[in-house]
């Protein structure tokens, strides 16, 4: 039996088309190119895109509970138009009270942050004086901040391609037809907005 199956495998391997050998360099190129062209066409850098993503999460999570990790943001070209595709797994719908509470919290936060801004502006100097023990040199702190910023950008750059990869898994067409039907507990919402290219 063993001899037969190994012989069969050998024969089968010979006749198998060569296409299925993992992720080939062409799909890497296609994905990288799609990402870079999306940026070229829209003037959205990975950084701005990430900000857009987080603001959208903020906005939408007031109304529904989302799986933030699985949120996908994508641009697709259809003829002359660019479509912004947003696919968000919904864990559950919020009830009315929760939504109102979230909206209230948002309002409070808004008024608070306005107040905060004034505060920080007024006693910004004294604060930095208090913390002077920790800060050895102002320049090193600046450099640190810059390095952190660069790290963040690098991280974002790494993150963005994974958004595109996930796209393939989630079959947006199906979701578009049937937005609230998911195969696990989470549900998916498809938002679509079109803009002139």
């Amino acid at each position, binding site marked *: 039996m063993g001899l037969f199956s190994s012989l069969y495998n050998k024969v089968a391997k*010979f*006749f*198998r*088309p*060569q*296409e299925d*050998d993992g992720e*080939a*360099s*062409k*799909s890497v*190129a*296609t994905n*990288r*190119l*799609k990402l*870079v*062209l999306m940026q*070229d*066409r829209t003037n959205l850098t990975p950084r701005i895109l990430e900000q857009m993503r987080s603001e959208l999460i903020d906005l939408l999570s007031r109304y529904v509970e989302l799986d933030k990790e699985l949120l996908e943001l994508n641009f697709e*070209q259809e*003829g002359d138009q660019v479509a912004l595709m947003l696919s968000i797994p919904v864990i559950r719908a919020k009830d009315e009270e929760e939504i109102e509470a979230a909206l209230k919290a948002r309002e409070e936060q808004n008024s608070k942050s306005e107040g905060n801004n004034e505060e920080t502006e007024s006693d910004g100097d004294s604060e930095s004086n208090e913390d002077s023990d920790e800060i050895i040199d102002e320049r090193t702190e600046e450099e640190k901040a810059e390095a952190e910023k660069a790290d963040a950008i690098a991280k974002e750059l790494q993150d963005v391609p994974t958004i595109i990869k996930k796209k393939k898994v989630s079959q947006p067409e199906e979701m578009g037809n049937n937005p609230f039907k998911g195969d696990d507990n989470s549900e998916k919402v498809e938002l679509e907005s079109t803009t002139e290219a």
Partner: protein
Amino acid sequence: MTGRVIVITSGKGGVGKTTTSANIGTALAKAGHKVVLIDTDLGLRNLDLLLGLENRIVYTIVDVIEERCKLKQALVKDKKNPNLSLLAAAQTRDKTAVNAEQLKEICDTLREENDFVLVDCPAGIEQGFQNAVAGANEAIVVTTPEMSAIRDADRIIGLLATKEEISSTKLLLNRVRPSLIKSNEMMSVDDVIGILEIPLIGIIPEDTGIITSTNKGEPIVNDENALAGKAYRNVAQRILGEEVPFLDLDEPKGFMAKIKNAFAKLKVKV
């Protein structure tokens, strides 16, 4: 007579604009149409070399614009085909020696007495590109299945879309290597079209014959046996409005490969 003015452009250099211009021009002329090729790559002219006309150039496009000669005097007739002529670029000047209006005027004059005016555009998106595009009403964007060439082509397609005079923009995919596409190491024709989303006018396979034809100063369309030559002849036919199927480059050549392919197809059906 109002001929068609077609600009051949790419953004990136070295993808085969000049080779494409020379071959399409030659093929159209062989099909009996009157064709003028304009080299707008001032300071870096090469179209004369590909046509084998480098020793016949007396006047250039700059001489015409600066009125040192008449337009007709500057047109160099092809050695073989009297239907084909070349308006050469000036080698000693740069792109600023010509402006868009001047080039448009030349194109407008030439189209009155020719079926086709093919404008070979320089690489880049600056003055040289703007000049070359100015007189055209159709465009062929040349690219290869490489990321950098496709990205630049996308940029060019975007720029061409803003030009009202250009009514059609088509894609010519050059230097395609079927064996690499088969092993998933090169983007396929469908991949490229999926990204750039403009209609295809030709697929030209990588062909070592291009090197020898350039060496000799004879476009590969004159070689009846060369695959790239056939592909370029097909492009010319499509420009003339004929429906010509794209060459099937995937056809395996060896006997074993054919058997293997047959079984692979069988497997898909099962």
